[in-house]
């Protein structure tokens, strides 16, 4: 069967002109593949290269060597390491979502609108989009009085809920999600895990970064552990 994603000999370094041409090796010899509908848990210590790998897949970091063969709905099989900017933008718009650890939003846009925005951009009727956004925020336990407030003033956990809701509401085909449960209480953590499992049922493939053993065990089909920018071991998670 055609793999959903196949990463071959990926290498990433940072070359810093402004620090006397300092070279930092971020990732080396990265090889793995994933199947459609799979959830891979990316683990490893801080600085081991988890977020760098995710950013290489999303196109935020340029890849020095290797290829990222992705079986896209827009173009069929495409090497993301060589795709044009417009191809990447189109893939991002239609099927690939990246959810970072930190919420970055336009100031002065209410929480509910931020969550509904992608759906509206996808052509969903505004009323329906807002309704779905309300139900997501409700499920995630964000107090209703905050829905029309601006998230830049929210607590870490509240911002994270907005961030997660925003990323998964449009049911992307391929989701890259960085620490979705890091600053959440146990109940909300379970809700987020269930929401991502629901996405999986509807066909989404997920790469997830987590430090949390509970999230990993309950969500990931497989663990990929990074040490110093290399894949250490690939094993089946206990779930």
């Amino acid at each position, binding site marked *: 069967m055609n793999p959903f994603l196949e990463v071959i000999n990926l290498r990433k370094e940072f070359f810093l*002109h*402004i620090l006397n041409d300092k070279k930092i090796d971020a990732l080396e010899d990265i090889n793995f593949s994933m199947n459609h509908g799979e959830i891979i848990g990316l683990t490893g210590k801080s600085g081991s290269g988890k977020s760098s790998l995710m950013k290489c897949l999303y*196109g935020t970091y340029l890849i020095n060597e290797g290829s990222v063969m992705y079986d896209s709905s827009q173009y069929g099989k495409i090497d993301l390491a060589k795709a*044009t900017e417009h191809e990447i933008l189109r893939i991002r718009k239609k099927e690939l979502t990246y959810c970072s650890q930190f919420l970055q939003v336009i100031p002065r846009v209410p929480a509910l609108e931020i969550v509904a925005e992608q759906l509206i951009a996808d052509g969903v009727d505004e009323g329906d989009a807002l309704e779905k956004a309300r139900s997501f925020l409700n499920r995630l336990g964000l107090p209703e009085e905050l829905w029309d407030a601006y998230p830049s003033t929210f607590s870490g956990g509240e911002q994270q809920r907005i961030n997660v809701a925003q990323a998964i509401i449009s049911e992307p085909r391929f989701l890259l999600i960085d620490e979705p449960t890091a600053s959440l209480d146990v109940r909300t953590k379970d809700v987020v895990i269930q929401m991502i499992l629901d996405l999986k049922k509807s066909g989404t493939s997920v790469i997830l970064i987590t430090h949390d053993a509970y999230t990993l065990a309950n969500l990931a089909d497989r663990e990929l552990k990074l040490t110093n920018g290399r894949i250490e071991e690939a094993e089946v998670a206990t779930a």
Partner: protein
Amino acid sequence: MVTDNSDNWLLRVRGLTKIYGDPISNTIRYTGPKYGTNQCPETDAIVACAEIDFDLFHGEVLGVVGESGSGKSTLVQLLYFDQESTGGDVRFRGFENGDVNLLTVSNQKKRYIRNHLMGMVYQNPRDGLNFKFSAGGNIAEKLLMAGEFHVGRIRDRSSSLLERTEVPVPRMDNAPGSFSGGMQQRVQISKAIANNPPLLFLDEVTTGLDVSVQAKVLDLIRGLQRQLGISMIVVSHDLSVIRMLTDRTMVLKNGRIVEAGLTDQILQDPQHEYTQLLVSSLL
């Protein structure tokens, strides 16, 4: 790469160049980021920008960043015909299907393109607005130039534009000089989009506004892009503005493009020495 083999472009720019003074054959060769100067070593010629290549796609927002004097304002002024280019080839799908070089068409056609197919918002509202006219009069001026002569329709369009940009409609008949800076900027945006242009240039539009007003103007611009699908070129030295508004970005230094790419890539994995310096200086 800011150029692309795909055929979905709205604006295609190749070799766009502007030189002040008298260039000699080596003027372009011995200026630019490699030499750290815009000035020809042998004559007094100044290369404001040279060899600019890029494609802007339908509905896309392209950012242009760089320090003062890097040529970023010149770039949009050349495209809007505020200044005459020294050389280059500019194709625009909005005009004769992109079959002609805009830089070589007659002045009459240039005026038509400006009035009907493009909009410009300047850093200083005084450059985009006539302070002797009222706010509504300014919008009417643009509509008249675009061939709308019906007074009632002009009046309706003006008030709906001001409403959209959150300028109190009752103040339509006041001169912009009596408005706050943020409000002047919103009137200028209303004027720039009055003729429903497919292409809008924004030159440092939030520079000099206080932060709360800045947020409002940014939100307005994003809304216009989302709802009307206008393609835009956004010039700014403020990387936060670029991050919030644009899909792709090009970085200018000494009149040349030193780096271009997806905006998140430029901001998080800059390749060129100058971009690394720029990004690392971000507050």
